[in-house]
């Protein structure tokens, strides 16, 4: 996918307005990653940029919210791509989008975007720990739903994802309802809120020479329990690249983070529930014709089923 001539001209005009100088767009190329947003590399006479474009509401997340999060984190000196502006109306490219700097990085080891060597893993873990230690008031303006107490945060997130699945599917999925009840029942107490990435792990970090240049893909970010991110890295994104014990060792060594076995199980169930619910949104968009990409059908069926099956294997028992 590239943009039509009209879209390219409209994008150049919008960028010129944002930058306060004439911008000429010389090339556009769809990047082969990303499902929640279409990612298009845009080359211009002012450098290379990434257009991160809405896909009709995939995963029920908001690009405008994501833009606000990245802008605030960038101002705080956190490693994110510099954002250059957001277009919310859809008038320029047909869908809302935001623009950020393109970050050139060497290809990942073996061409696997989820591969991380020891140095890169350590750098990522330190960056994630730093995120969790940031002052949450940095982002209070960026999120719609804010918990009134730390312990309310996890319940708010469970309700958020359950509401998305109910909107998307239109009928009751008993195993998801059971999952929501299980997560509410066994939710651990939380004393302090943190900024949570929500989709943390291999594939959502850019490295050079073992150093984190940018943490990417902030659409799932929210205020909550950092354990969600450590679990997401170990049980979801980093599952096929390192064993759980290897990840736990790295977390302890580079961030001082440890958790009980029951904690790991709880947060794995939470993340599987989140994924199973979020994935239902893509099938709804596929069937409505909002987004006909085949990956929307696959995420909404096979990936949803995979997450739900793993969730069901955990929620079959009470938490020890």
């Amino acid at each position, binding site marked *: 996918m590239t943009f039509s001539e009209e879209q390219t001209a409209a994008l150049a005009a919008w960028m010129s307005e944002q930058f306060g100088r004439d911008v000429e767009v010389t090339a556009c*190329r*769809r990047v082969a990653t990303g499902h929640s947003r279409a990612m298009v590399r845009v080359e211009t006479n002012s450098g290379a940029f990434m257009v991160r474009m809405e896909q009709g509401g995939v995963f029920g997340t908001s690009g405008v919210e994501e833009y606000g999060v990245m802008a605030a984190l960038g101002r705080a000196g956190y490693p994110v791509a510099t954002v250059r502006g957001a277009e919310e109306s859809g008038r320029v490219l047909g869908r809302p989008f935001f623009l950020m700097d393109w970050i050139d990085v060497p290809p990942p080891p073996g061409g696997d975007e989820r591969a991380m060597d020891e140095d890169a893993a350590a750098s990522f873990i330190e960056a994630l720990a730093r995120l969790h230690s940031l002052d949450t008031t940095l982002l209070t303006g960026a999120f719609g739903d804010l918990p009134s107490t730390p312990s309310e945060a996890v319940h708010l997130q469970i309700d958020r994802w359950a509401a998305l699945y109910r909107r998307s599917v239109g009928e009751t999925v*008993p195993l998801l309802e059971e999952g929501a009840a299980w997560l509410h029942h066994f939710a651990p107490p939380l004393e302090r809120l943190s900024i949570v990435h929500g989709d943390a792990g291999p594939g959502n970090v850019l490295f050079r020479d073992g150093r984190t240049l940018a943490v990417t893909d902030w659409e799932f970010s929210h205020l909550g329990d950092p354990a969600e991110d450590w679990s997401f890295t170990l049980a979801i994104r980093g599952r096929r690249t390192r064993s759980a014990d290897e990840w736990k060792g790295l977390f302890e060594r580079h961030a001082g983070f440890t958790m009980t076995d029951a904690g790991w199980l709880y947060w794995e169930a939470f993340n599987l529930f989140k994924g199973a619910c979020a994935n239902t949104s893509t099938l709804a968009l596929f069937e409505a014709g909002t987004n006909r990409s085949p990956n929307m059908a696959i995420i909404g069926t096979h990936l949803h*089923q995979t997450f739900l099956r793993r969730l069901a294997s955990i929620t079959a028992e009470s938490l020890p």
Partner: protein
Amino acid sequence: MSRRPTDGAMWASVASTLRDTVLGSIQDEYTQLATIALIGVADYAATRGADPGPERRARLESALEALHANPLVAAAGSGTSAERAAAALVGAVGRDDPAATEVRSVIRTLLVGELDEDLQATSGMGEAFRGRLPTRDPA
């Protein structure tokens, strides 16, 4: 009246043409991956058979009727079978008494078994999503 090709045959044609004729000529990585994903979807459409939904609803209804004396099922109200199954499973969370155990062993086992059937049917799409051509040949 002329015969119409079946949906299955037409989807198999889409998958086979994309696989054997189109894919090899694509250079762009994003387009290649989208085409492989489409092959996975077309394979699935060609082979998935009839919608199991009505039969599953009837089976769940029968399971709920068989457990009508179970207090968790009795308390589940009068909605659809899925709503009553959900209410019974939700009521059983955090409990290990006989009623909760019965709900899980009957209702849950049924639902998880159906989920396993779905996963088996969509496994080719899972391969395609990861950029690998589905190994299953619908023919």
